């Protein structure tokens, strides 16, 4: 008989139920620290940049961007796909890891889900504003009208509308459902009337009774079940924006899995970046431990390798297809007018994650912080390479042209960070950024055998 496998404790340090509640609620109840105000100020400034850029865009037209005739989509679509990709980690952590009983997720899921929602919010700006007549963007929705005119259901852009909005709604519900017990905690701890009322409404009459818990857990499970296919579907559908077209470099069947892997890759990288900052600022390194981060780094390594494989197989298929246009497109990617972007992408997405083969580096906060930022840059460039380099040189060389962003492309992208961080900062200030109810389930006290000899540290029996 071998010795029982012991799991590394999910939380470090000594925690009690009340300690968790006090610590996490305290973040939202205490006076906000000065860095928070500074950060919010910066974020709001960027948000103003976003509003200003959009305002000018509506006033002048899409011409203020760098898009031109062969390259009809530029940074706006790159940003859209990138933000949607970032938004993948949250639901993956919440839904798939939940179903797989990966209980280390409890420390980071709330955080990641919020990040998902905010990333999708940022993403959703772009399809709306990148169209020529943004005031008519609602025509993409199947709204009954006097013309009897429906959208074109054959268009992948329409599939996008459904896929992303479904994903957003499902993620929002999932996140909110998970919040209910914690909102009740906030309500109960609230000392002023207004908070009591607001949290009271949001908590939907949660009392923590046994029956409520049973309903709650079932609902949460069902939502996890609904969300799981969405994690895979949303970016698959986004990838059809490209895969369904006939442009070499876009017209590729590998795109759905390749995009999903890339999305998870970038989503986890973003979670790592934000987590490292948050656990530093709010001193919650004992709840979100290095073990959590290491697990995420392993996923990054896995999905990064999948993405790298996809890059390779694209070249193989281009050669294997015997299609001269396809072959040219890929040679052009690596050695053509946008080769610089391609090699940035390869460096960031393929080479950088390789550091995570080493345990020491995998657990090093500075290393993973830098790596995660590289990966986010790399994933942005991946979308740039796909969108721009394919369009800039397609079938007829007479049409070839070079695309460069304008100042407004850049300001809109930077401004979208303003929206993201503003929402995020408000979230960590006013809502429980770690799921108190769920973290408590992984405390030793939650184990029915707690205090009994031979009970396993790390949680209750499954």
């Amino acid at each position: 008989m071998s010795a029982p496998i012991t799991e590394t404790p999910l939380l470090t340090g000594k925690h009690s139920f009340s300690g968790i509640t006090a610590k996490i609620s305290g973040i939202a109840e205490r006076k906000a620290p000065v860095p928070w105000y500074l950060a919010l100020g910066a974020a709001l400034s960027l948000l103003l940049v976003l509003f200003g850029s959009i305002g000018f865009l509506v006033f002048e037209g899409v011409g203020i961007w760098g898009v031109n005739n062969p390259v009809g989509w530029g940074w706006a679509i790159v940003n859209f796909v990138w933000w949607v990709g970032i938004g993948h980690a949250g639901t993956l952590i919440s839904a798939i890891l939940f179903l797989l009983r990966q209980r280390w997720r409890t420390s980071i899921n709330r955080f990641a889900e919020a990040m998902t929602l905010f990333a999708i919010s940022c993403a959703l700006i772009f399809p709306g504003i990148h169209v020529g007549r943004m005031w008519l963007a609602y025509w993409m929705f199947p709204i009954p009208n006097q013309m009897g005119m429906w959208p074109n259901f054959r268009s992948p852009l329409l599939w996008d509308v459904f896929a992303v909005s479904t994903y957003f709604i499902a993620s929002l519900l999932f996140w909110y459902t998970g919040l209910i017990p914690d909102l009740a905690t906030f309500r109960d701890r609230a000392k002023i009337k207004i908070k009591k009322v607001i949290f009271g409404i949001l908590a939907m009459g949660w009392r923590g009774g046994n029956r409520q818990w049973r309903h709650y857990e079932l609902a949460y499970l069902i939502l996890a079940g609904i969300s799981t296919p969405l994690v895979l579907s949303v970016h698959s559908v986004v990838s059809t924006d490209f895969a369904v077209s006939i442009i070499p470099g876009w017209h590729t069947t590998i795109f759905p899995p390749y995009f999903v892997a890339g999305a998870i890759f970038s989503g986890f990288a973003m979670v790592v970046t934000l987590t490292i900052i948050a656990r530093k600022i709010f001193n919650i390194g004992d709840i979100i431990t290095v073990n959590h981060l290491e697990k995420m780094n392993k996923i990054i390594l896995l999905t990064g390798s999948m993405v790298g494989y996809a890059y390779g197989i694209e070249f193989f298929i281009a050669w294997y297809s015997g299609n001269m246009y396809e072959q040219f497109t890929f040679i052009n990617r690596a050695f053509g007018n946008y080769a610089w972007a391609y090699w940035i992408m390869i460096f960031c997405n393929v080479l950088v994650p390789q550091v995570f083969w080493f345990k020491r580096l995998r657990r090093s906060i500075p290393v993973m912080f830098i790596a995660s930022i590289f990966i986010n840059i790399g994933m942005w460039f991946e979308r740039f390479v796909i969108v721009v380099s394919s369009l800039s040189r397609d079938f007829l060389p007479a049409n070839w042209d070079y695309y460069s962003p304008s100042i407004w492309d850049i300001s809109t992208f930077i401004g979208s960070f303003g929206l993201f961080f503003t929402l995020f900062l408000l979230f960590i200030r006013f809502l429980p950024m770690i799921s108190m109810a769920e973290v408590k389930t992984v405390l030793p006290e939650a184990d029915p055998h707690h205090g009994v000899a031979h009970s396993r540290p790390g949680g209750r029996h499954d």
Partner: protein
Amino acid sequence: MKRYAQDKNRRHWSSIAQRADSAGIQQHSPVGHRDEQSSDIAQIGRRNFLKLMGASLALAGVAGCRRPEEAIVPYVDQPEEIVPGVPNYYATTIPFDTSAYGVIVECHEGRPTKIEGNPAHPSTRGASSIFLQAAILGLYDPNRSAKIRQGGKNREFADFLSFWGEQAAAFAADGGAGLAVLAEPFSSPTLARLKSEFSQAYPRARWVTYAPLSDETRTTALKSLTGAELVPVYRYDRARVILALDADFLQHESESITAAMDFAAGRQPGDAGAAMNRLYVVESAYSTTGGMADHRLRLPSEDIGSFLLALLRELADRGLALENVPSGIGNTEFNKKWTAAVASDLLEAGQAGLIVAGRRQPPWVHELVFLLNHALGSAGQCIDFFPLNDAALSSTAELNKLTTDMAAGQINTLFILGGNPVYNAPVDFNFAEALDHVAHTIHLGHYHDETAQRSAWHISQAHVLENWGDARAVDGTLSVVQPTIASLYGGYSDIELIGALVTAGPAKGYDLVRTTWQSIIGPNDFEKKWRRVLHDGVFEGTVSEEITFTPLKSADRIIAELSPPGRDVSQENLELGFYASNVFDGQFANNAWLQELPDPITKLTWDNASLLAPLTAEKLGVANGDMVELHLDDRSLALPVWIVPGLAEYCVALPLGYGRRELGRVADGAGFDTYLLRTSGGMSYVRGATMTRTGRTVELANVQDHNTMEGRPIIREATLSEYQARPEFAREAVEHPPLKSIYPDYDYGKGFQWGMVIDLNVCNGCNACVVACQSENNIPVVGKEQVAKGREMAWIRTDRYFAGSLEEPRLVFQPVACQQCENAPCEQVCPVAATVHDKEGLNTMNYNRCIGTRYCSNNCPYKVRRFNFFNYTAEMAEVVKMAQNPDVTVRSRGVMEKCTFCLQRINRAKREARKRGQELNDGDIQTACQQACPSRAISFGNLNDPASRVARLKAADRNYELLAELNVRPRISYRAKISNPHPQLAADEPTGGRHPASETGQG
């Protein structure tokens, strides 16, 4: 408040007459009050315009608004009055240099909107050119001069008449000593009559004619050779072998429209009864004609004469019956094999062998060329000679004398009738300075241009579509210039001004022209015949009698007078060459359509540059966009470099007409003034220039970044023998799997199914289709900055590729418009179904539904969709809006647009056929590009009618569809390009860039 009420009251018209007056409608007299009218018109919005139309209807018996006051006769319809929405067509003539181009002007509710060639006119035969097409925009140019000015003050024409009245009295006394007229060349009975009346009235006055680009060298040569002023009319359709010496006869020589048409007719491989000519071109810069060549020899312009001597020697050695060829000429070695091939081909072709020299070559080259044609027998066969009647020819020498006399103070009063000599006279004449020595200077011009600014008087000139006149085509055919709209800016025609000079009183163009024509037509039945001429646009039966070419000189006399050739070109001895451009000599510089039109070869817009061959650029260490300084003697000019493969080494090609200041909103700031290096000794080319780098660079807006086909089967080519061996080579060029769609196929077997065929074998890249499309479809002009960003809006574009080596490339053109794919990739991806197919196979565009995702454009493999990135029509001057076609929607910001095979023309033709109660016939519908094309390269019609021309061409060999392997099923197909190389030279031809059938596309 009171003041406001007063002002407001003033805006109310007290009577209908006043109302009409305020818009300047009431003017009957050709003099007076035209000023206010013209300044108003620029402010007129569409709404106001309609209001005025309403006012004019109320005054129908009093005056017609914006319509000429005299009787004009519509070409097709005979409307009792204007039917709103139904255009009228009027025949008129656009004189250009000593040529006349008969056109038909489409007018909507009294405003001209489109120009087409007049099928009855010998110089257009229904086709047109970029300049004819763009004349519509020139008419409405808001920067056209609208005022009579004297020394910065506004004047009335009556003021001018009183000024001239005093002068005239003085001149009448001394026979006009010190009086001079500087006019543009013409070929017009009325102008000729007035000119001779002027000379009678003022026998000592001078009349000098000058144009910066003209056929001066050729007419000089013919005059010295035959003693008569002759004009040669080339019959390219009769030629089997053509040698063009520096002659861009398909684009910038005179009579290019019929030249292109005839050349195309003689270049029909495999078609029944037709044959394939062979074109040799010797030139310095790359021209569209050079692009059509089967063999092209690049030589510095000055060496082309030496080449001719070498050819002469070769031909004489081979037994051409040419008298007195001195020995010892033609020793310069060029390309021996090439020369031998040309010589043998010409001799074999005999009277079907044609040599053409361009206007850039000196008279002696023309003389020898005509002698050679004479010896070959092609003079009289491939060249018809006609007398130059009623014409005034450009003479640089006369201008030189005039300028000298002006500078010497011998000219007291100078009338400059049209033209812009301050800008375009040879720079060594110092015309502007000489002008300051003339006491009274009067300039008649379309713009308040460089010359107007330095003249004491400036009189605004009427546009050719606004005035009366007449013209003689090169073959002698007479036609009338009739106005299609009342003068927008109150200008006066040259006829009216000369009339005023002669009579010292007001003269109406209509009366002057009718007076001339009374003697032409004769008194019998004058009115009826006059109306017939106006209706037809030509006076039938006025073709001059051909003149037999009889040279009075022999070759040895010509050769004996030659000066030795100059030093060879080198890095320190560059040859500068001056060329006509998209704005011709600069007279169209303020025409936005022509400024934005890409140069056929360089693909530059809004600019000219010093064009260099790649190797020369490398030796000089310059790259595209580098600002360089050209030095010639003590003159210099800074302008950017643009590298063009195929130019002769150490030759700098300089397009003319750019670099304007204070001319107009369009012209100002576009390009560089190359006239500053153009001296009387080097009007076409000059040696001895050097180039230095300035270290600065400028951005040039070109529309095509990439110049090769990358080995793709885009333009499919074969030699004549390859084609004869494998007639289906074009279809076989690409192998692909069966083309199946996952969607059920729509049944296109019923009704009309529109399709188009473009023959790449005759397309010479002249761009007439591009401007015609812009005019027909209200395509906006976007400006240099937007073009540089890749946002040009042309619905049909001509792709230009170089093939072969960098030094000796061949040039191929391909017009690309929306291919109207049956399985259209754009339609499938539009989320709002804004672009959909109609049952006649058109890929239509619903602008109102478009939200502008641009996905359709991304998914278009031809990239023919154009997006309105900004509201491009917002800044359009109100008056320019009158040029717009009311049958085509003006697109707003944020929507996609593209070609729909001129859907408005299809619908109009259907309506007309229904009204006639007849079936629509093949040829009833012509798309704008098709109608303009001088090469007749474009065919359009119903694919379901097996007898239609387009259906027959699609079934014929050479037909292929571009990117058919993508299964988009385009409705446009192309006919492959065939070259006809000389067997002995064929081996030398680089084969790179051709697409033998072994090459595969999509696997």
